[in-house]
């Protein structure tokens, strides 16, 4: 293995890979599913293979801003043409620059910061906020679980909180109306 920085990066990627991957695939799936139906297996594989965090975030925003956009696939292709090569390029730069940039710069802190932007953009209702709050705190409480299971369990806890919050909101609105 090349360096401590590279190893840390791989570990980080492993840790968040599963959860984010699923959330991402779901987000893009929800945005694309009516359009994806017309595509072959090979074309779908291409869509899945070139999916990165950034295009996921943009697809999500696009779907919320312009529902039923008929050119969504073209939008995705355009995003991918820019994001995927730059993702790769800056990963490589990061692996090498990781040995040069001093640790005191705490550049790795930019990762959770960038996710704050996605998080704020993705919360659009009270149940979603409940899912975020519970998921966030659970991930800290459960951090010591082996195999990074904490993240998975925290996600489930957040999900559950969101479902309960939905029920609560539903009860509240029907109660006020009645």
């Amino acid at each position, binding site marked *: 293995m090349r360096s401590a920085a590279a190893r840390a990066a791989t570990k980080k990627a492993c840790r968040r890979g599963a959860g984010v991957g699923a959330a991402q695939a779901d987000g893009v799936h929800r945005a694309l599913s009516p359009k994806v139906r017309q595509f072959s297996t090979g074309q779908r594989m291409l869509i899945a293979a070139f999916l990165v965090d950034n295009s996921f975030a943009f697809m999500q925003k696009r779907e919320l801003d312009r529902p039923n956009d008929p050119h969504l696939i073209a939008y995705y292709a355009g995003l991918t043409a820019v994001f995927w090569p730059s993702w790769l390029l800056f990963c490589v730069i990061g692996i090498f620059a990781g040995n040069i940039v001093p640790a005191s710069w705490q550049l790795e802190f930019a990762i959770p*910061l960038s996710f704050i932007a996605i998080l704020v953009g993705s919360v659009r209702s009270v149940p979603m906020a409940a899912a975020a709050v519970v998921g966030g705190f659970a991930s*800290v409480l459960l951090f010591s679980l082996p195999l990074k299971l904490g993240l998975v369990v925290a996600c489930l806890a957040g999900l559950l909180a969101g479902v309960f919050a939905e029920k609560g909101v539903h009860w509240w609105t029907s109660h006020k109306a009645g």
Partner: protein
Amino acid sequence: VDVTQSWIVVLGLAVGTFLIRYSFIGLLADRDMPHWLERALKLMVPAIFAAIVLGGVVMVGGQVADLSHWPRYAAAAAAFVAAMASRGSMLLTVIVGMTALHGLPWLLR
């Protein structure tokens, strides 16, 4: 960790993450998802991102960061405000957060 082992990890990650992504796009797109699953997955996005954010801000070396790490908390709060104000602008959020992380201790030194 030798070179072969590294490549096995890399290939495993490549196949694994691809399968997770493809499972939704490739296999589920043809059928309508049950309503409850779709609702639950919609909640999963904020839950997982919040879990990553809080884990990344609060945990340092496997421990909850104590008050000596206050710039982390201050920077995250500043980034949160920037994200709210800019309706989720990633560039602005990161710039404000990193500036706060290094700028606040420098101002108060």
